[in-house]
Structure formats: structure tokens, C-alpha cells
């Protein structure tokens, strides 16, 4: 079916309304401002071609994010960047809270709260950007964009269990990166032994 001017007006309106979220997501996925803009433009062009596949215009957001995700994953494949699916077992249970929390400081201070207060947007962005692509996209879609596990499974074309495991591993890697940042910045609690973090390696 040939597009009408109304189609284009609708499409432009929807895309521009979603642009702040699309660009924010693309920046985390591409990790580079210029590449992020190219990724969004690529997704918009593909979405226009595929707009006939959107049966319910009320589902534009999820549909558009699926196309953006597929563009990113296609780039990863073409660059032969194979996502690391199996990080070290130890990463799965990494807890930033456990590293920061100091029960004996209950009435004297709160290192985990202080950590969150010191954490800058750029610190978070850097930690997200450092994740392997398969984990990064799961964390971005769930934690940043607020999609459900089921929705992300649909967007990425993987089982819900895969979303769960990638999310768990991605979050563990993210928290380790934030812990290392806290330690390097001197925010981590100092223990009687003089080392930062009782369980830190």
C-alpha cells in the first residue's frame, strides 16, 4: 500500500516524540555520540520501510525499540563482535551493596547511601557502556527503559529465561564496575586492616 501524507505525518510525530528515549538508548548501545545518531537514523529508515508490519499503532514504542535493538545487534554481528555470554561464575553473585555495607557503622554512617549520593550520571553511563553488548542491551531495556522481561524477550527474539540470565549477569558486571570506581575514587569504606572493602579482592 502506498504511503499517504497522513502516514508520514503520523510517523514523524511518533518518531520525534520518542527521539529522546531512542537517542538515550542508542548512546548506551553504540557508546559513541556519532554512532548513536547513525543507529537511530538507520532504525528510523528501517521502521519506515517496515511500518506495514505495525498492526496496532498504539504499540509504536515497543515496535520501534525492537527495530533499534535489531539494528544494534546487526552491527555487532557485522563487526564480528561476539557477545561474551559466560562471564566468570563469580560475577553472578557480585553485590555492590555487600561490598559497601558496614553493619557496625549503622549509627555512624551509611556508606551505601553516600555512594549513591556521590555517583554521577557519567559514572553510571561509563559502567553501562563497559558491559558486553548482550548484557548491555538487556540492562538498558529493563533498567533504563523499563520494559518487562516478556517485552524484552519479544524485542530481542530470545526466551524469557535468557533475558533473566543476561540481566543478572549484566547487573553483576555493572555493580562490579561501580565498586571498582568507588574503590578507585576512595569512596569505599576502609576496614581496620586498612584495605577498602572487607570482601574486595
Amino acid at each position, binding site marked *: 500500500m*502506498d*504511503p*499517504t*501524507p497522513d*502516514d*508520514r505525518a503520523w*510517523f*514523524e510525530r511518533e*518518531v*520525534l516524540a520518542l*527521539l*529522546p*528515549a531512542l*537517542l*538515550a538508548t542508542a*548512546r*548506551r548501545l553504540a557508546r559513541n555520540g556519532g554512532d548513536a*545518531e547513525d543507529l*537511530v*537514523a538507520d532504525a*528510523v*529508515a528501517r521502521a*519506515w520501510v517496515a511500518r506495514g508490519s505495525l498492526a496496532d499503532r498504539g504499540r509504536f514504542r515497543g515496535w520501534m525499540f525492537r527495530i533499534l535493538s535489531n539494528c544494534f545487534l546487526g552491527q555487532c554481528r557485522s563487526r564480528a563482535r561476539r557477545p561474551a555470554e559466560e562471564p566468570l561464575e563469580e560475577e553472578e553473585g557480585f*553485590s*555492590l*551493596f555487600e561490598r*559497601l*555495607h558496614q*553493619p557496625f557503622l549503622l549509627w555512624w554512617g551509611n556508606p*551505601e*547511601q553516600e555512594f*549513591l549520593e556521590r*555517583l554521577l*550520571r557519567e559514572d*553510571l*553511563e561509563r559502567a*553501562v557502556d563497559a558491559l558486553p553488548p548482550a548484557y548491555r542491551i538487556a*540492562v538498558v531495556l*529493563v*533498567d*533504563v*527503559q*523499563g520494559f*518487562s*522481561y516478556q517485552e524484552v524477550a519479544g524485542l530481542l527474539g530470545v526466551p524469557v529465561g535468557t533475558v*533473566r540470565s543476561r*540481566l*543478572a549477569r549484566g*547487573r553483576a558486571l555493572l*555493580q562490579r564496575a561501580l565498586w571498582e570506581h568507588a574503590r578507585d575514587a576512595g569512596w569505599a569504606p576502609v576496614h581496620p586492616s586498612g584495605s577498602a572493602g572487607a570482601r574486595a579482592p
Partner: protein
Amino acid sequence: MSEPVTMKCEEALRLLAEYLDGELHGRAEADLEHHLEICRGCFSRAEFERRLKARLGSLSEVDPPPAIAERIRSLIESFPV
């Protein structure tokens, strides 16, 4: 639904991420909420994870530079009708 049961901390922490993601429902959700009401350690952990997740959620949008908005607008205008 019967009264919530007290779950162990290990089980509570295993379910915590799904709970904070809004993916836990029914009995499991009620039991976890009951545990968080009576366990200071798990409550503190839950609050930390909730706040960290909220900080990540704050990355959900950016103000697009005028140039990219114009680029996308021009791209859409270039599509044949």
C-alpha cells in the same frame, strides 16, 4: 490468600531483583514483602537496589541536539510518498 510466611534471607535475596522489576506476583510477592518488613538487612539491601535502579532509569531520555532532530525530520521528509 493465607497469611504470608517468613522466608529465609537467601530466598528473599534470590527473588529481590524480580520483585523490584515488578515481575514477582501473588504469594511469592506477598511473602517477600512480609520478609522485607521484618528483616532490616534485606530491607536495606532492597532500598539500595531500588535506588540504584532508579538512577539507571534516570538515563532513559536525553535532550536531542537540534542537529539530530533536524536530521531525522529531513530523513522522514525524504521518504517517497
